């Protein structure tokens, strides 16, 4: 059903590699002396270049090549990367990303500018690659030329992964004088020869002043799958014209002794990386969704089985039914767990954001994250990204003071942004805390009055003022800076969070900073609901929105022709008759109930015929054929196999639902 598109696979892998590269660069920025980070950055670039070339992304390969060279230089020279180099490399990462995304739509000017910056930097740091490579660790003069005898044999399928052995030989030639002889002893008979396979080995006589590790580095990406013997020749004489046949040369005893010591240096490192990769499997989200569907189906079938078993009163059958109940509940939990991902994958992205913001705004700051291991539904993690970007931007832009103001206020020059996540009950709390000036309530009030969101002089509590931050249209005027970017306002942040059945809280202390906390349910896939009946239909009201259930007083019922308000312990609560809203025409029964629901600040009573009970289930989205029906956010499947619709309380309470009865289409 799903063709495996190699280009799509490359894009996916490249995206991961770029992410990894970006993190490595940022780590390197914090810790320039870490050699393993330089190696990691180099490897990521090398792989992007190699696989880019293989899948026809030649511009990516060409562009990445220079960065690879620069980092190779760093690797070899032992020099530390300058912050400026990291900056350019980060810009390069962005450019590679753009090239992979849409090569044709990317202006080569950007790439050229980045490359010229890079060359300029390299020019300062190291005028010549070879000089630099030998400058720090091995001064040229201190190291006499050594003669090595190398035997190379690649795995037959070496070219499948894009490795070209001839290029590696060329690279060897770059190290010093070389004599290369092919080893043809493993060639299969012509009839069995697969032209795509490499059966040729090479024997290389290399005289170089570079260390042995330089030779190993040439093969660092294929070392696992090849035989490589590096033997130091006893005679360090300059290369003698070598016309002796290879077998004879390979037979000298000295060489054999040397050859018995294979190269293992790079192996442990490679193995540890392989461990990292091996522990996860990449699965299409769509397949997980299908698995969830099947599991949902199983749970429903199991509920019917339990019902039958219960009616039959047959102990053996009941035992089996209970066993299956237990198993399917376990299976459901496991399947749910598959969708959970640590939120750290999201946090990692913000390091770059904060790094850039700090530079642009001239606010030195420390970015601390905690709770990366907290797990959340994958879809939610994706949907959380934009709101978090906005909140973090706000914290850096508006929350933190400039260094001089901080110093004047007796704080350290460096600001602190703390991003954390943790489990609290069945919720995940994600919070962004800054140690800046805190919310300026007077300013919020002034602005709200100016924008007509608040009557001048009207009393407003602190929490009401804070809520104004999330009012549509608030706080947009001042933010036409490069930072405000996508035009996402705090109202959109709030909407996004509430669409995930979450809430956002703000606490603030003047001079000490503010905290934005997003409270989210663990998963979008499951809902705790109140099952109600309206006429013959069953509907689910999300339990998180339900405040209380009360009897509809007959007097209120009859009086409501003129006004639809209830008196709930002194508070005026408007109510909505779901029968009318759903276009049910027959008369309601005697004892109607009111389910009082809340969304944001407003409360509404929903009049239903009967409250059937509590229902926990898997949410199914409605198709686009029903996308225009605002009153429902999805559907669920009941124990008897019938779908029931889930009410969208926000739409109902906000009155944004379209009139849901009458013929809107005269098809």
């Amino acid at each position, binding site marked *: 059903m799903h063709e495996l598109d190699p280009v799509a696979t490359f894009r996916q892998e490249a995206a991961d590699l770029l992410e990894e590269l970006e993190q490595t660069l940022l780590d390197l920025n914090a810790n320039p002396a870490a050699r393993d980070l330089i190696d990691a950055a180099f490897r990521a670039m090398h792989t992007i270049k190699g696989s880019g070339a293989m899948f026809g992304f030649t511009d990516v390969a060409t562009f990445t090549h220079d960065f690879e060279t620069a980092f190779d230089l760093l690797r070899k020279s032992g020099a530390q990367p300058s912050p400026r180099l990291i900056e350019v490399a980060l810009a390069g990462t962005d450019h590679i990303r753009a090239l992979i995304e849409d090569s044709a739509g990317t202006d080569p000017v950007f790439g050229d500018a980045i490359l010229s910056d890079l060359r300029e930097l390299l020019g300062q740091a190291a005028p010549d690659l070879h000089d630099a490579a030998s400058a720090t660790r091995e001064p040229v003069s201190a190291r006499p030329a050594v003669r090595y005898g190398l035997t190379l044999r690649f795995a037959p399928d070496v070219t499948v992964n894009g490795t070209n052995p001839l290029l590696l030989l060329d690279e060897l030639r770059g190290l010093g004088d070389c004599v290369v002889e092919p080893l043809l002893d493993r060639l299969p008979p012509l009839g069995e020869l697969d032209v795509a396979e490499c059966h040729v080995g090479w024997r290389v006589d290399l005289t170089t002043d570079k260390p042995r590790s330089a030779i190993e580095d040439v093969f660092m990406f294929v070392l696992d799958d090849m035989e490589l013997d590096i033997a130091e020749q006893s005679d360090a004489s300059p290369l003698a014209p070598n016309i002796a046949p290879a077998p004879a040369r390979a037979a000298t005893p000295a060489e054999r002794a040397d050859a018995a010591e294979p190269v293992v240096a790079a192996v442990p490192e490679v193995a540890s990386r392989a461990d990292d990769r091996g522990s996860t499997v990449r699965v299409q989200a*769509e397949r997980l969704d299908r698995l969830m*569907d*099947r599991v*949902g*189906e199983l749970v*429903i079938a199991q509920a019917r089985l339990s019902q039958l078993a219960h009616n039959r009163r047959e102990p053996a059958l009941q035992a089996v039914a209970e066993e299956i109940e237990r198993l399917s509940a376990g299976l459901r939990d496991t399947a749910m767990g598959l969708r959970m991902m640590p939120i750290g994958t999201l946090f990692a992205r913000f390091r770059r954001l904060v790094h850039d913001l700090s530079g642009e705004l001239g606010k030195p700051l420390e970015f601390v994250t905690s709770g990366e291991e907290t797990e959340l539904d994958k879809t939610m993690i994706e949907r959380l990204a934009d709101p978090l970007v906005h909140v973090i931007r706000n914290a850096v832009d508006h929350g933190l003071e400039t260094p001089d103001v901080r110093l004047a206020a007796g704080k350290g020059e460096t600001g602190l942004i703390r991003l954390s996540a943790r489990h609290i009950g069945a919720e995940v709390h994600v919070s962004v805390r800054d140690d800046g000036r805190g919310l300026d309530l007077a300013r919020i009030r002034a602005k709200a009055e100016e924008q007509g969101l608040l009557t001048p002089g009207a009393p407003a509590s602190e929490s009401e003022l804070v809520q104004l931050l999330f009012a549509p249209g608030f706080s947009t005027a001042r933010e036409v800076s490069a930072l405000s970017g996508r035009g996402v306002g705090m109202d959109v942040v709030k909407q996004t969070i509430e669409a995930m059945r979450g809430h956002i809280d703000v606490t603030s202390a003047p001079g000490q900073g503010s905290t934005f906390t997003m409270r989210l349910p663990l998963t979008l896939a499951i809902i705790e609901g109140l099952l109600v009946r309206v006429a013959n*239909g069953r509907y689910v009201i999300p339990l998180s929105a339900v405040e209380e259930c009360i009897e509809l007083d007959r007097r209120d019922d009859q009086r409501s022709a003129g006004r639809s308000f209830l008196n709930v312990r002194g508070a005026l609560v408007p109510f909505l008759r779901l029968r009318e*809203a*759903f*276009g*049910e025409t027959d008369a309601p029964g005697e004892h109607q109930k009111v389910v009082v629901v809340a969304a944001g600040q407003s409360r509404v009573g929903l009049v239903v015929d009967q409250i059937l009970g509590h229902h926990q289930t898997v949410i*199914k989205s*409605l*198709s*686009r*054929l*029903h996308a*225009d*029906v*605002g*009153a*429902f956010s999805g*559907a*669920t*499947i009941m124990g008897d*196999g*019938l*779908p*029931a*619709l889930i009410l969208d309380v926000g739409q109902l309470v906000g009155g944004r*639902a*379209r*009139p*849901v*009865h009458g*013929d*809107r*289409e005269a*098809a």
Partner: protein
Amino acid sequence: MMASVSGQSTTRVVMLGLGDELFAVDAAAVREILDPVPVTRVPGARDFAPGVINVRGSVIPLADLRVRFGMTAAAATADTRFLVLEIAMEGDPSPMVAGIVADKVYEVTEIEIPSPDATPRVGMSWPADMVAGIALWKGDFVVVPNFTAILN
């Protein structure tokens, strides 16, 4: 006898009856044919898509082409079937899965689908975009519906 002279290739279709009309649905789009299952009404939905059904754990919309084509919807009989279709929609990578009601399903057969241009516009009261073409089968006219337009 009908002579096949146009040289057009034939398409495998499911032949079904709706009211007095015959409809030919591309067999490749038909995922399964079911006996009627209970329908959950969606209040406020458009008339031709009155509800949703549970097809093996998925909630899918049920569309009534009879309403869409302005026929009177007859009550379900022993012949009534639901067809589950997978329809590619514009701007959506995954196809839409939807059910349609058929008064009767006749057979799976091969017919020639004429090009849309060959469909006369005069003499048809249905919106033109909902009909991909009119074909002939055993001497009867057969409507080839365009689901992308119908289910929009």
